């Protein structure tokens, strides 16, 4: 590794990803704890009752292996589980089943940045472990210190987690943010996690230090409790500034864990003395080594979808999309699938990209729904866009039809009918009058066309659109075209 400049931030991330396996890592209880009545998704195993024993959830292993393969990690064909021993009320066995010396996968990398700015951030390891329960403190501010009592909810206890650790190769808060964002995108594409930081299904801890005068690594500080990409970035910015000020004052950085307070916008050290944890890791005797057959791993490899960064590149190279369009369309797997479905129905890539960005995402935002819950199927949007393409529907009319199709769950023809009458109701002499009316208003354009200044036919399309708007979509664009031709070429 190249020597770093002095005073450069060195950031490494530890990311816990909750996997949506349906059942917990070592028992059959549901993982769907959000909104569930406390302590209802529990059984003797995830409550750690005396005599209960864990059995590994195959699906969790599949999901983790799939993620590791997508990251290009080396799969450990024989790995094992360790016990991480510590006392806390949210940990019912007083140990967490995790992986230690032989993780499920090591190595691999994740790309951030684009084109020549692309940087591959290496992955240290990926391992499986179980989540803990949740403490609910009685104080109004939810803080332990101010609480008279605390309650424990074990619904989350035993939910499968992948811990993914990056090498300390990120050097700005922005890079860290992008790394998490790319990883989130990946797990969503793989369908292994919601990747929702706000809901805690993706949790990030950051290790950060500043290099010394000779570029050597400084003392690292761990920052926790960032619940969004934005707070991750803010926390790192704050922490870098804090450490720089510390050093400028001639103080030494203390190795510690600091909590990000999103409200106050600062990190604070854990009060009191830092307790040196000795987790007394040892191999869990209840679980035999996890041995993966090459066939199992191959099966998981065959289930990998096109990876988001490959897809993005393809959209740019193959369909000529701008990098920005491609980024927006590949942020969520559902959007990417939607886009490609639209193309299959005859929409052109640029128009589809544009419509999805401006119209579809707008509606999703307004309604606060995901693309999966969006009423208008990509087939229907594809048909609508194809009509624009073939000049059958003007863009203006198409936007009106789009609203109808979304609101009333219609296809193009139904929407046209609903618009009052079937396509072409304004026809014959009525339509001719309407065209003349429009042309009267647009003399300048007509003049230009007559002078042959409409090589690409854009001006004709423009006029056609105006007529369609005038007819409130009740005209047949083909007929409009024909009438326009007659008049203009006369």
């Amino acid at each position, binding site marked *: 590794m190249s020597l770093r400049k002095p005073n450069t931030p060195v950031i490494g991330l530890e990311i816990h990803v909750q996997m949506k396996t349906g059942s917990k890592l070592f028992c059959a209880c549901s993982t769907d704890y959000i909104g569930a009545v406390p302590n209802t998704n529990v059984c003797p195993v995830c409550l750690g*009752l*005396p*005599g209960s024993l864990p059995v590994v959830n195959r699906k969790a292993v599949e999901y983790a292996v799939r993620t590791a393969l997508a990251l290009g990690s080396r799969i450990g064909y024989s790995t094992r589980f360790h*016990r991480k*021993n510590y006392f806390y009320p949210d940990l019912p066995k007083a140990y967490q089943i995790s992986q230690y010396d032989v993780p499920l996968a090591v190595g691999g990398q994740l790309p951030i940045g684009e084109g020549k700015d692309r940087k591959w951030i290496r992955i240290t390891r990926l391992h499986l472990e179980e989540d803990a329960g949740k403490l609910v403190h009685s104080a109004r501010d939810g803080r332990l210190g101010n609480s008279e009592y605390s309650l424990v909810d074990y619904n989350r206890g035993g939910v499968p987690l992948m811990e993914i650790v990056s090498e300390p190769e990120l050097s700005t808060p922005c890079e860290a943010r992008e790394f998490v964002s790319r990883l989130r995108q990946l797990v969503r594409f793989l369908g292994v996690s919601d990747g929702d930081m706000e809901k805690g299904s993706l949790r990030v801890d950051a290790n950060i230090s500043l290099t010394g005068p000779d570029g050597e690594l400084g003392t690292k500080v761990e920052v926790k409790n960032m619940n969004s990409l934005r707070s991750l970035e803010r926390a790192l910015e704050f922490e870098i500034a804090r450490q720089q000020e510390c050093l400028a004052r001639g103080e030494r950085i203390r190795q510690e864990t600091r909590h990000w307070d999103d409200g106050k916008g600062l990190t604070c050290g854990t009060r009191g003395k830092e307790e040196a944890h000795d987790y007394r*890791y*040892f191999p869990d005797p*209840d679980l035999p080594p996890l041995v993966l057959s090459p066939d199992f791993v191959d099966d998981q490899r065959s289930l990998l979808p096109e990876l988001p960064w490959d897809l993005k590149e393809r959209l740019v190279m193959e369909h000529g999309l701008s990098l920005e369009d491609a980024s927006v369309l590949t942020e969520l797997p559902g959007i990417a699938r939607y886009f490609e479905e639209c193309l299959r129905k005859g929409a052109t890539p640029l128009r589809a990209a544009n419509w999805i960005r401006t119209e579809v995402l707008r509606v999703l935002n307004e309604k606060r729904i995901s693309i999966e819950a969006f009423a208008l199927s990509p087939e229907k949007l594809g048909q609508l866009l194809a009509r624009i393409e073939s000049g059958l529907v003007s863009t203006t009319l198409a936007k009106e039809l789009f609203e109808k199709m979304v609101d009333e769950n219609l296809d193009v023809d139904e929407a046209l009918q609903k618009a009052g009458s079937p396509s072409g109701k304004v026809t014959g002499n009525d339509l001719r009058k309407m065209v003349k009316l429009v042309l009267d208003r647009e003399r300048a354009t007509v003049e230009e066309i007559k002078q042959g200044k409409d090589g690409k036919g854009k001006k004709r399309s423009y006029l056609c659109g105006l007529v369609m708007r005038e007819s409130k979509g009740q005209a047949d664009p083909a007929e409009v075209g024909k009438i326009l031709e007659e008049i203009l070429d006369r």
Partner: protein
Amino acid sequence: MKAVEIAKAVKEARITAVEITAKAIERVRRVDSEVRALLTPLFERALEKAAEIDRKIENNQDPGPLAGVPVVVKDNLCMRGLKTTCGSRMLENWCPPYDASVIRFLEEAGAVILGKANMDEFAMGSSTENSAFFPTANPWDTERVPGGSSGGSAAAVACGYVPLALGSDTGGSIRQPAAFCGVYGLKPTYGLVSRFGLVAFASSLDQVGPFSRSVEDLALAMNVLSRPDPADATSSRRERPDYTACLGKEDLKGLKVGLVSEFENYPVQPEIREALAKVEAILRGAGAEFVSVSLPATIEAGLPCYYILAPAEASSNLARYDGVRYGISAKTENLMDLYMKTRGLGFGPEVKRRILTGTYVLSSGYYDAYYLVAQKARIRISREFREAFGRADLLLMPTTPTLPFRKGEHQDDPIQMYLSDVFTLPVNLAGLPGLSLNAGYSSSGLPVGVQFVGPKWGEETLLTAAEAVERVLGKPACALGGE
């Protein structure tokens, strides 16, 4: 009556399960105030279960191979809604919401569970004196210990309360009390019997197994207990044989019995030496050959290896008793006090000693020197046994170095207590099956046991050899005037 005979009589409606159960209850009532084998009698429930068996018989349904057989189970096996104390204050009133797999297997086979048997707290001990509630007496001399930790189960069978009982064996906890109480005790190969619902002491060593007063009953019990269990990831999926099929073999020609050369000069009480010689003569008489095998690492490292690994696992397994969810809970003002006071009150001295030892050997800075070295020793011991079983089909060894000792004799000297496991615990380290059988009585009337050890999955060989001895010596006697 043997379990086999009871099941047959009940199935043929010559006697009802309720009658059998009532008789067993009567026997307990007459004798148990002296022996105190049972922690929690389940008499009413047993009579109800027995009545269910009888109804099945009336309706021509098959109640299973243990139809109406009264059974006692060690109190570290979970039974839904019933107290499962593990002999500890910590779980004094804890009722699990589920059945251990072996409990389910027993009841599905028609067995009638008569009660939960006393034990050393969390199965840590060799005398049942570490029970938080009361010690159990040796039925042959109530001033002496019945062995442990499954002392209650062994005593219950020795007194004839029941023909079968379940214990658990982590370092000898079935075989040592079987020897002290003069009954059969079988510790199966690790992975043969499900541990689901067995409250863990040391997970890589624990195994559930039966006590009986006849080899045939032992085999029958194994047929019921030995089933693959998807709820236990360490349960072997291999197919199980019919364990009664290996019985009835009078000729042992071709059977090679190994004697461990290192044990020849090991300090063992003369009665036990004599018993070994007697059993050797019987096996030779039946046609078996004897060979010498060597287990140097086992003798040297077995005991320390065990007393590192078992406490290490125990310290982690017992960490969950923190007063937060179940069991006793100290009234305190803060979390750290809750942990310390609850665990201080809930655990007895031996359990605390092992938790401390285990925590120590797993701590950073000591892990490599203790835990890791012990793991290596364990692998070596396993290899040594494997090599020995290249030469012999089974090993004949003492179960214990001494006859049952007096109550209180080793209470102040844990090392002396640990030494009583020297012949049993290597078998757990190597995950092998071990069968302790009675080979007669000392001049003072105390039972004398010896042990057969087999290769992995070698239970049938042990049963065949034990039956050959039984054929000559007869079935073990019943203590305290039972039948």
